[in-house]
């Protein structure tokens, strides 16, 4: 970094080919490396300089932006695994290739990690030397004043009634009062001048910003190692305790085990959804509210809480979010002997999130009966097809297709609870059968009966713990603060020189100014004000002027 900003050096800097992060870029020179180090050290140093050069950082930033694009265009495993499955089904030839390139999980792909790790290495290679440099420049005084201040970007000149030495003393006092760092001529120096510099916080802010970004990355890693995410579907009246077997899905961080889960338990008492009943956006939800009873640990007193979309439940440092809901019709199935083989609320998955027409299956294994069903909260018939007119359960109905035979539940092959494998089963006559709450469908041939008892609602909850959250927020705010400092503060130098006036006892004072960085502008005004203050301070008094004129 150049320390003295004479116009000559400015011109030299303009001709400089590359402005690198911290070091100047040169070709590797094996002979240049000191005794005892082989040619490879020269190449290593060259490689490091390349990596920490601004140009490389720029290319890596570009790659980071470019690499993110497929993550938004293609379905991502982390955000929507079902969409990835669907993509596989519709593009059977292309999908495996995309998968090989990690394009279904871009933000966890090795090549994406390579880009940002290289970028942060480059950043560290730039920031660390610059931190030392800043610490050094905070201890060294500003450079000596250039000879010809008129050649600086900003300059002004005025007569002073004071002698050159006194004029510079007064100027130095004024600049020192404005918290400039000063440098006066050493004992051997000739001339009367003062150098002043201010705005070291700009570079400090710049460094803070980059270090804080590093902190954000570390915080994210912290969350990935020690945090966890889990999902749980709960029907009204059901409860669970936060243990791995009780959860539907559990995504632990690399260093998390099941015993690290917060020991709370929670019961869903009631779920209420309300919808707009009139106007253009009729059917749009206006509120979701899940009332739960929870206790933070076994034996702790139980409390109730209303979980809403923007209002998660916090238990210790774990949070429980409401992320989905649907209907769970209650069915009772009896076998051919009249024994109850199935009696529970069955979650149906919304096929249409606007009207909540939902699909689901009932598996009464002991009765050798299975049903595929469609549930509608507000039934209407559209040309003979069952449809839902409104998402609230104003007039619920189900349409069932019955199957009898072996459900294949004991074959050892895992099955989805939302799908029925009808191979080896026979369709029950009379399907599909439409039912309203309270109605019973007695299956032909004495195979048994199914009763649509009523309707409950289910919610899906996300349980998350992320220890990196608060550090990430703190680092984000620090980054923003650093950014503002580096944009708002300007590093500037002001020089004052005084020479004896051609006639009379006063002197001629020249002020020169230079802003090294002026992102938000305004140094012009600041310099003008400063020059005016300096001039006003040393305004020749009227009697002096008349004397000089005489």
């Amino acid at each position, binding site marked *: *970094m*150049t320390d003295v*900003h004479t116009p000559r050096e400015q011109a030299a*800097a*303009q001709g*400089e*080919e590359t*402005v*690198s992060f911290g070091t100047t870029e040169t070709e590797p020179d094996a002979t240049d490396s000191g005794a005892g180090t082989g040619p490879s050290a020269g190449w290593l140093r060259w490689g490091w300089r390349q990596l920490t050069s*601004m*140009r490389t950082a*720029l290319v890596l*930033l570009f790659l980071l*932006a470019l690499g*993110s694009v497929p*993550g*938004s*265009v293609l379905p*991502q495993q982390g*955000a929507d695994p079902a969409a990835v499955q669907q993509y596989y089904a519709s593009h059977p030839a292309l999908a495996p290739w995309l998968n090989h390139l990690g394009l279904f999980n*871009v933000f966890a792909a090795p090549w994406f990690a390579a880009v940002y790790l290289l970028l942060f290495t480059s950043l560290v290679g730039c920031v660390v030397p*610059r931190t030392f440099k800043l610490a050094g420049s905070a201890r060294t005084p500003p450079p000596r004043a250039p000879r010809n201040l008129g050649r600086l*970007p*900003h300059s*002004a000149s*005025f007569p002073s009634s004071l002698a050159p030495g006194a004029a510079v003393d007064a100027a130095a006092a004024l600049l020192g009062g404005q918290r400039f760092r000063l440098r006066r001529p050493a004992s051997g120096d000739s001339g009367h001048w003062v150098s002043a510099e201010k705005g070291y916080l700009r*570079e400090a802010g*710049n460094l803070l*910003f*980059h270090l804080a970004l590093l902190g954000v990355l570390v915080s*994210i890693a912290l969350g990935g190692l020690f945090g966890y995410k889990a999902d749980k579907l709960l029907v009204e009246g059901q409860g669970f305790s936060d243990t791995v077997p009780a959860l539907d899905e559990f995504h632990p961080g690399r260093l998390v085990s099941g015993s690290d889960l917060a020991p709370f338990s929670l019961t869903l008492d009631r779920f209420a959804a309300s919808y*707009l009943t009139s*106007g253009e*956006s009729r059917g749009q*939800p206006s509120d979701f509210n899940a009332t739960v009873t929870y206790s933070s640990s076994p034996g702790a007193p139980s409390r109730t809480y209303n979980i*809403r*979309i*923007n*209002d998660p439940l916090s238990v210790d440092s774990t949070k429980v*979010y409401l*992320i989905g809901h649907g209907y769970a019709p209650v069915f009772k199935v009896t076998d051919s002997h009249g024994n109850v083989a199935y009696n529970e609320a069955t979650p149906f998955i919304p096929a249409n999130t606007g009207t909540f027409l939902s699909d689901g299956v009932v598996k009464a294994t002991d009765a050798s009966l299975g049903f595929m069903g469609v549930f509608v909260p507000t039934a209407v018939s559209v040309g003979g097809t069952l449809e839902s007119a409104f998402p609230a359960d104003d007039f619920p109905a189900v349409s069932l297709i019955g199957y009898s035979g072996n459900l294949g539940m004991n074959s050892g092959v895992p099955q989805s609870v939302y799908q029925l494998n009808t191979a080896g089963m026979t369709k029950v006559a009379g399907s599909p059968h439409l039912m309203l709450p309270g109605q019973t469908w007695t299956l032909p041939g004495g195979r048994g009966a199914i009763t649509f008892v009523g309707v409950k609602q289910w919610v899906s909850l*996300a349980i998350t713990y992320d220890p990196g959250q608060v550090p990430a*927020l703190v680092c*984000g*705010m620090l980054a*923003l603060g650093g*950014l503002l400092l580096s*944009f708002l503060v300007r590093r500037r130098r002001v020089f004052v020189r005084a020479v004896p006036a051609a006639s009379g006892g006063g002197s001629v004072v020249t002020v020169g100014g*230079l802003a*090294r960085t*002026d*992102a*938000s*502008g305004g*140094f012009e*005004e600041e*310099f*003008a004000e400063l*020059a*005016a203050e300096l001039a006003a301070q040393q305004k020749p008094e009227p009697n002096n002027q008349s004397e000089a004129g005489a």
Partner: protein
Amino acid sequence: MSVNLGLAQVSGDFLVAAIVIYSLAVIGFAGDFAFGRPRRAKAAGAAVASGEHAAQLATVGAAQGAAQGASGGGVSEAPGASDLADGAQAVPADAGSGGTGSGDAGSGDAALPARQVPALRAIWEAGPWVRVAVAFSALGILLHVVAVVTRGFAVHRAPWGNMYEFVTALTCVAAIFFCYVMVRYRAWALGVFVMGAVVIALGLAETVIYTAAGPLVPALQSYWLSIHVTAMTLATGIFFVAAVLGVMYLVVERYRARVAAGKAQPGNGLLARIPSAAQLDKLTYRTVVFGFPIWTFGVIAGAIWADQAWGRYWGWDPVETWAFITWVLYACYLHARATAGWRGRRAHYIQLLGFASLTFNMLVVQVFITGMHSYAGVG
């Protein structure tokens, strides 16, 4: 609380009125372009006569003029002299060894016309066309603000809950911010471009993506709407102005390069009105420097809200991904200005790429790509 339909109607009427008044302002700015006297050329001519030291003298004159609060002949020459300096010198290089996101040394070299004359007087001196256009712009902004505020009162929330409301608000920000920049830097010639773009954006909002006033879905019922979306609206409005300035820079710079190569005649009447390439470069940079921290804040606020609503502060949702891409591209621009070989045209291309990704996020990703941010309410 239900929607106040009467008030929503009032808001719509005010917006239509604002579009009409803005259109008149654009006509005013265009009239200045066509019939106004060529200010810059005249001032530059005066400066040429005073020789090589004109720029330096002008700076001293400016300093002293500001110090004494005086105005008049000597001072009014200053902007012209600065213009000459711009033409003679390239964009200043960072004299230090550069720096992450810096590169703005020697602020005097491409100095923008400073505030030597009070704003109102400067508007008056700029000629009848500019006077009328600025007056219409101010009136249009007033109507526009009333439209946005009444919409907010009609729906009892921050009036940027869907795409139509978002565009309405961001153009309001762009118009206000641009008028500040225009008056601050006396850049009257930019009016026809920026205000023209505002009129087009508003016209499209009114015709293509109009959405009736209504309450919000539960996911948006949070005070973070007013924090996150407000920051994004402000930043988008500011980047909008930066993008128009960037395009103008490229046009002026191309013309300058053609003149230098002998392929075009100097003294193009239209381009002579526009600030010089160096001034536009600096103005664009300052605009981005203003918008970038606001965008950063908006992204952080969005992360906090996402954590509250969805259980994670960052999930690479398509809209989040594109906000990140936009942020990285603007960061690229800031770094490119401090990198040799990337200043000037290339940096501006990056800046425009950043705005393209922002626009793509707003108009394509939010509307057509399903994600957690699908609130546009279009179609």
